């Protein structure tokens, strides 16, 4: 395999780093005391999480009646949040697996934290279906194990059971992928740290890694295999999530466009969340030379592409509703854009289709502050997308007599706030104890000490024949 290097391209990592500098820059924040800022933010997110714990505890003790659900609207806030969080997770796997298969070297600066984000987002997502059961202590009944209740098995024809398997597998594989990527870096930290406790913990988890190339070679194979497995997995997970809707007969849900539409939306919202986190991290932890403007630009470009796919899906849905000739479908979509939840629809549409177009301007996508503002809008827009899909179809189904309205109760809002608290608390803990950037992989993409850099003046390009 011939690799092509060009000196016309800007380096991925700025500042002409040596290997030792990379190790130092990434490991140092883990060896210092937490700053007051860290503690301040952590206390806020922990409080948010505490609020969620109180809300969920109250809901479990009292019942699902504490939510704003009614006979017509059986899914609302919680399933919106579930789909929202699962979608967030998908960008992590996209960066770590799909961009790896496409040999996109810029991923090395962001993949570690994106994968962490995936795991934390899936944890947040998993909470919602479990508490929605009403009796979460029977949650393990979703697992088909031989039991004394008949044995009473799960129904494998149900998309909800598929979903349980999809989310479970996704969580385990993401965790394994993340951990495999961490092993060499844990060894680096083990060999660096002076604290006895840290040495023991990093030593335990680094499995005796010593940098042997025999193991590296096998490791690279395993990493490639995992990337190859995670890529169809991530597509299958959101496809199955969309089947929760698409296999029903509710107007507006029963559509074959749902799987690609959901997967594109997941990648779109996930990249918005990755950028939200990365923009904060690079500033607070001074990693501007690792997470460069080029990384931000690349992610903005993916956002433009996925925004168009999402926009295309929104319009296709309208076209198909009209073209189908089905009056219920037609009504659902007119109601979606102009009915009681039109405000939510237009928030969704403008945040997801109009605002991302600003990224066409290089000035805007190279300005971290503006990018941050726009991605916050996308986060909001993508939450509303799920809200709109669920709300407009459920509140206005076939029978006008059963039409209803829905507004979230304070308990539901507190639960959502709680998951945000959990997500950011976990991310903050991660930032204190594990390297935010893959030390080993970043060293691999440096031009330092490679043959191409032997002569600084000569422009050498090896082209594939």
């Amino acid at each position, binding site marked *: 395999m011939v690799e092509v290097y060009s000196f016309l391209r800007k380096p991925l990592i700025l500042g002409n780093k040596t290997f030792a500098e990379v190790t130092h820059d990434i490991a140092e924040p883990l060896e210092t005391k937490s700053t007051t800022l860290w503690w301040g933010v952590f206390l806020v997110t922990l409080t948010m999480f505490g609020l969620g714990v109180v809300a969920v505890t109250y809901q479990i003790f009292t019942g699902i009646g504490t939510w704003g659900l009614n006979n017509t609207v059986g899914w609302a806030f919680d399933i919106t949040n579930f789909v929202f969080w699962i979608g967030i997770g998908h960008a992590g796997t996209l960066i770590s697996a799909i961009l790896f298969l496409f040999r996109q070297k810029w991923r090395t600066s962001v993949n570690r934290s994106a994968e962490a984000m995936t795991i934390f987002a899936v944890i947040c997502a998993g909470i919602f279906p479990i508490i929605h059961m009403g009796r979460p202590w029977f949650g393990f009944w979703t697992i088909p194990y031989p039991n004394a209740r008949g044995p009473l098995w799960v129904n494998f024809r149900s998309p909800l059971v598929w979903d349980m398997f999809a989310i479970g597998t996704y969580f385990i594989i993401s965790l394994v992928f993340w951990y495999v990527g961490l092993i060499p870096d844990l060894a680096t930290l083990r*060999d660096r740290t002076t604290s006895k406790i840290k040495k023991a913990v990093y030593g335990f988890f680094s499995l005796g890694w010593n*940098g042997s190339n025999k193991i590296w070679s096998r*490791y690279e194979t395993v990493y490639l295999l995992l990337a190859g497995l995670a890529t169809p997995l991530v597509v299958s997970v959101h496809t199955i999530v969309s089947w929760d809707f698409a296999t029903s007969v509710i107007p507006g849900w029963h559509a074959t466009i749902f799987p690609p539409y959901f997967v594109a939306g997941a990648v779109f919202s996930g990249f918005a969340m990755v950028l939200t986190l990365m923009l904060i991290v690079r500033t607070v932890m001074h990693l501007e030379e690792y997470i460069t403007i080029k990384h931000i630009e690349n992610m903005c470009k993916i956002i433009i592409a996925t925004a168009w796919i999402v926009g295309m899906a929104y319009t296709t849905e309208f076209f198909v509703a009209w073209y189908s000739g089905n009056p219920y479908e037609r009504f659902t979509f007119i109601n979606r854009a102009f009915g009681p939840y039109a405000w939510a629809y237009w928030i969704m549409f403008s945040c997801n289709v109009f605002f991302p177009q600003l990224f066409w301007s290089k000035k805007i996508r190279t300005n971290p502050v503006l990018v941050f503002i726009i991605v916050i809008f996308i986060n909001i827009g993508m939450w509303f997308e799920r809200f709109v899909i669920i709300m407009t179809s459920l509140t206005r189904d076939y029978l006008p007599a059963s039409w209803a309205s829905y507004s979230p109760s304070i308990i539901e809002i507190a639960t959502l706030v709680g998951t945000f608290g959990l997500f950011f608390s976990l991310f903050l803990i991660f930032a204190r104890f594990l390297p935010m950037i893959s030390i080993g992989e970043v060293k691999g993409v440096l031009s330092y000490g490679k043959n191409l850099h032997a002569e600084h003046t000569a422009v050498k390009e090896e082209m594939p024949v």
Partner: protein
Amino acid sequence: MSKRLLISAFEYEKDILGATKTARESGYKIVDVFTPYAVHGLDKAQGLKPSKLPWLTFALGISGAIAKLWYQIWISATSWPVNVGGKPFKSVPAFVPVTFEIMVLFAGVGTVLAFILISKLRPGKKPTVLFDRATDNRFYLVLEETDAVFDVKNIRSLFARFNIVHMEERIETGNGKLLEAEVVA
């Protein structure tokens, strides 16, 4: 049984690649190379064969899929058949998603466990051979001194053009531990 090993240290990727290639082409026995990151092309330079793990992954994926498909059919059609909306008991198309998930789960988790086992890694293991900066910024090439003809000076001059920074001899005891560092250059 003890072996005499010669350890050479390098600073740059291009040097370890060159030195490893030269050592192999000159007929020296390479025990292993230690690097802070996965150096592309080093497998070839060192003469490592591609891992056979992909075959295992394939086998694991297939067995996971078959096992899960059988389990679903057995549950839905044999153990306690339940009529769900008049659908057939063996509704295989509906069993595809879960079969796929379990295939990925078996293949992924199984491959990683196999990798850890074959590489003789385990939680809490102390690294058997560990060079100071192998996980930071140095590359180490370990050669075995196979016979009496093995001349350290020869190798030293062979590696001179690869900016060798350090060279030492060590004895490896039977259990993989390294003893007696003796700096020779």
